[in-house]
């Protein structure tokens, strides 16, 4: 048994060595980070590879903080970060490639058409517990919040000037789609998710409805025009100024050539 294991390892090592040689022929750009941006960059990378057959674009998912950490440590050429850079991340250069808004969503059958700022704060801090208090049915509100550390949560909290420990949630979720599925499956739930994702799903019959925020309808167009009050940028970050192949890819990702891809993935392109 031992020799068989040894043989297997030797074969693997051989394969690895051989593969190692063939690997260096192509320029490889490694991107890691935000799971929100990863599908978009995969598509952009695919188009970039088609134009530059000698380049390979490897996109890895795993979260914004991983994008920051990997770009810093050189594990990745480019990090993907779905929020603005923080003051202690000044060693990185962030280049925006798209925008995204964040909207409150409720179940389609919920009669509530809009929530004021005070009502949102009341609901999320647990002072308002029944839908009847904000013009809805006489039922308990199910508050859906995002998990600690998510950039959507940080944006939401800072917009409503809340702290996470004040929030009394019944459900805590991770990704956008989980939030949408949770709200779609519960007529009494309220949550907040990426506008692009919510619009896409609502347009395909998922029973959710986007609520306006401070009188502004939660639409793609309003985010693009800069009218929607709660929005974020999607960044590609590099350690220092981008250079070489990474710079070319970042410029490609900002260009009009990929505008259709940005819209296809339900984000808002930067240039109108």
């Amino acid at each position, binding site marked *: 048994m031992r020799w068989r294991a040894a043989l297997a*390892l030797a074969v693997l090592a051989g394969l690895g060595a051989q*593969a190692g040689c063939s690997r260096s022929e192509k320029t490889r750009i490694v991107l890691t980070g935000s799971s929100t941006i990863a599908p978009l960059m995969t598509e952009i990378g695919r188009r970039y590879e088609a134009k530059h057959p000698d380049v390979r674009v490897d996109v890895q998912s795993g979260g914004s903080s991983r994008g920051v950490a990997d770009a810093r440590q050189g594990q990745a050429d480019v990090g993907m970060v779905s929020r603005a850079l923080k003051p202690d991340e000044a060693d990185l250069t962030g280049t925006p490639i798209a925008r995204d808004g964040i909207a409150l969503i409720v179940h389609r059958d919920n009669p509530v058409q809009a929530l004021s700022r005070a009502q949102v704060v009341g609901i999320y801090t647990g002072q308002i517990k029944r839908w009847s208090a904000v013009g809805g049915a006489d039922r308990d509100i199910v508050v859906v919040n995002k998990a600690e550390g998510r950039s959507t949560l940080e944006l939401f909290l800072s917009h409503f000037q809340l702290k996470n420990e004040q929030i009394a949630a019944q459900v805590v979720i991770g990704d956008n789609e989980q939030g949408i599925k949770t709200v779609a499956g519960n007529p009494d739930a309220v949550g907040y998710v990426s506008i692009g994702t919510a619009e*896409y799903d609502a347009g395909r019959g998922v029973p959710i409805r986007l609520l306006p925020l401070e009188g502004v309808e939660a639409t793609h167009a309003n985010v693009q025009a800069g009218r929607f009050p709660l929005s974020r940028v999607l960044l590609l970050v590099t350690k220092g100024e981008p250079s070489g192949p990474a710079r070319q890819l970042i410029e490609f990702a900002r260009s009009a050539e990929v505008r259709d891809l940005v819209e296809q993935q339900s984000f808002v392109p930067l240039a109108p």
Partner: protein
Amino acid sequence: MRTAERPRWRGLAAAGVVHGAALAVLGAFAWILGDLLVAGLGQVDWAFLTAPPQDAGRAGGVGPILASTGILLAICLVVAVPLGLGAAIFLAEFTPAEGRLGRLVRRSLDVLAGVPSIVFGLFGNVLFCKTLGLGFSLLSGGLTLACMALPLIIRTAEASLRAVPPGLRQSAVALGMSRTSVVRHLLLPAAAPGLLAGFVLGVGRALAETAALIFTSGYVDRLPESILDSGRALSVHIYDLSMNVPGGDHRAAASALVLVVALLAINGASALAMGRFGRRLGAR
């Protein structure tokens, strides 16, 4: 009279409960698979199985992802099965059941089986991707999977080796058979059902793993050119489609269906092979 009635009544009740349990399991499975079939069957065709994904997986197929999954599984099994079988034979045949060393190894295996997959992912990321410099690659992912499948394979294989009646072993030794030929001709065939169960569980765990693979084999959905390339596993694809890509549900269901069918094929083939192996060796 009464004493004769009671056991029969109890036997009937027990039979009812036993049948009920089996039905419940089958029912749950039918429910889940039914949902998958309804959502996914219309999407699966030859093009879906071979084409590369497009539009973040909402269009196109899963061809390169299937290839990556196959390579990951192969690496995992090539490493874990011989190593696991060897370790199980060592544990069952060369260490006493209550010995210090055997106990230590066994305990650590049980702990290993309980380590959450996400910790395996972080571990694999640090050890294989960074320390050994393999980067995000199928090799890193396969080796991480092997670490996860090992406890399942070793523990089940050991349990079934130990269950071989000692009489068999003693008579073989009395006949003057060497230890290796006892293992090869007697123990392995006798323990075949247990080995198969462990193998199937290992394959299942490897195919179903998501969290650990995101951090090791990665997210790239291109056809891998070597085992040092990053490649997306089917389960990662399913997770991405169902939790990260809006409108990906149907494709997620279709991919899950492909995964289930692939598993069915692997399990069926291994059961066949194991049956033949057991018969051939048993006939000698």
